[in-house]
């Protein structure tokens, strides 16, 4: 596996996870993000889901897409 292609994912989604955790933690402090509220629970789900959606897209276009149409492995 070519680590020069893997490190970008680790770096972007690692630092991204820290930013997301800081934001969610800051929302939970003081009760602005109130998980008893259905709307807020949905928002949290969307924020976490969006993160994994982006991760999935990036993995597809790193590990799979280069092999489409012309074969070969990473």
């Amino acid at each position: 596996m070519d680590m020069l292609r893997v490190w970008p994912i680790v770096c972007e989604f690692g630092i991204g996870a820290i930013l997301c955790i800081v934001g969610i933690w800051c929302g939970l402090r003081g009760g602005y993000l109130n998980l008893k509220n259905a709307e807020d629970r949905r928002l949290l789900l969307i924020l976490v889901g969006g993160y994994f959606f982006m991760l999935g897209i990036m993995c597809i276009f790193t590990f799979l897409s280069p092999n489409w149409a012309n074969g070969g492995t990473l």
Partner: protein
Amino acid sequence: MIAQAIGGNLDYAVMLGYFVAVLGFGLYFGRYTRTTKDFFFGGQRFSWWLIAFSCVATVVGSYSFIKYSAAGFRYGISSTQSYLNDWFWMPILVLVWLPIVYYNKITSVPEYLESRFDRKTRIAATVIILFYIVGYIGINLITLGRTLHTLLGWQVMTGAIVTAVAVALYVYIGGQTAVIMTDLVQGIILLVAGMGLFAAAIYHFGGFGDFWALLPRAHKYAFSEFNAPPKFSFIGIYVQDGLANTGALMLMHQGFIMRFLSLKSVKDSRRMVVCWILVLAPLAAIATSCGGWIAKALVKNGELVTEPGDSFVKAAHFLCAPGVFGFVLAALTAALMSTADSLINAVSAIFVNDIWRPYIKPNSDDKHYLRVARITSLAAAALGLALVPIFMKDTIYGAHSMFTAAVTPPVLVAILFGITWKRYTPAAAFVTIVGGAILIGLSFVWPDVLVGPFDFGMGPDSYKFMRALFGLLAAGTLGVSVTWFTKPKAAEKIKGLVAGTQLDAMRRFKGGTPNRRPGEKVRLITRFDPKLAGQNVVIVPQSALDKMAADPGDLLYASHIRWWYGGLRSVHVKAGTPIESKDENIVRISPEDAASAHFTEGQQVVVEKIM
């Protein structure tokens, strides 16, 4: 750049027609601008989808099509990586920054910095932010100048002047409402043109597989290599664009703050952000970059000869029929106008709210400030034009990257620490901004000493990107160090201005305890009641209050029943105490509130609870 003009008369006619139509559209919305609140914030009334399109149109500048297509031609689909960093900032934006800005009715970043820290921090930030926005205007103008040079053979400066005059004119008259409404049109056009071009290319090559097979293998990765090449490495792009530039767009870009404040509620901001970042931004990434990918495939197929900088225009010219090519050129124009208009309006807002109103002429009436705002819009466009000759010395990508990497880190760090860290002190904020800016300035004098250690082995070619990392670390270190040795502001004084106290800001905004119980929208018929004049209150039946889960004193929002108005005809009001009445579907509203919302008597409106 290519020397000869390309395109036919029909293309130029379509482009000119579009230019005139947008100008007229913007000028039409001037009638919705009566106060500085309307001029800067569109009256805080718009729906999430309208602002989502507006944000995309603002993010996609004219430089985007040229810059990202050139990168797409050279490096492949990794040209989209700049657009795919935004999601990570969403929790901080939606859960911290937006509620703080919106509920405290903060009109600019410098105003926030004075409330959170002190006046000297506000002044320092004002200087840097004005420099940042005016520079951005210059970059946008030079890009269109260069594009018009390619297309029409005009001098770069002539193209820049023509577009600057057009944009300044409709911002002058229409303000933020004109900006938002024209951005909706321009956002749609630039997405349709870009995606349409991509679809035409797939059709031309005989399917996605055939197109994909024509791209070199190295062009098929979402990210470029970690530290290669120096001018387009992942780490360089990430620190300059993913951290410094995206952070600045979210937290310190006055144009975006004004968009957020134009929303009818903070709840709408959540929908807006999801639509913008998860749906529209990826589409915009494809729309702006695909010209380069298509050109690369056409070159491989032996059908086209082009340089990276011309790849978008040449690929579009190759694939489009006469007239359709003009539509694509209109998208380029749209991208320029929709970004420059926001920036010009933003400079005006900062000048009036952070310089003119507090220091030069306080306590004047709103008409005076509106006049100053309009004149400042013209001056901002002129200043941007003055910078065009300076930026002409570099490539667009280079000028844009160098500029954002150098200017944004200190203020970005000060805002980020300010909203997330209660202990962060006023002295530390000032040192972060001023000291950070000085250190970044010194990095131009001694680049090898200061930026060199952060270049990941890439050398001087990477400095214009890696300067962002140096700036973020330098400003951050200064901020943290000074915080430990200085006294923070009293907790009481920063209530509502820092994470953990957003509910205090909500209480202050409403003037009471927020009502967050879930409720429904109701449809009611307006009836004018002069007795309610000056109270900003409406009387709705008890049954309607029950359906909305609202109580007397709650903040309501009444709007036109046609959703596609996007809140253009709407008003925020407070719920009054219901009175006994036979009419169960009547909302009593003062004539002045109705006029502000452009309601007529007997009209059906939708009413919903905000909080």
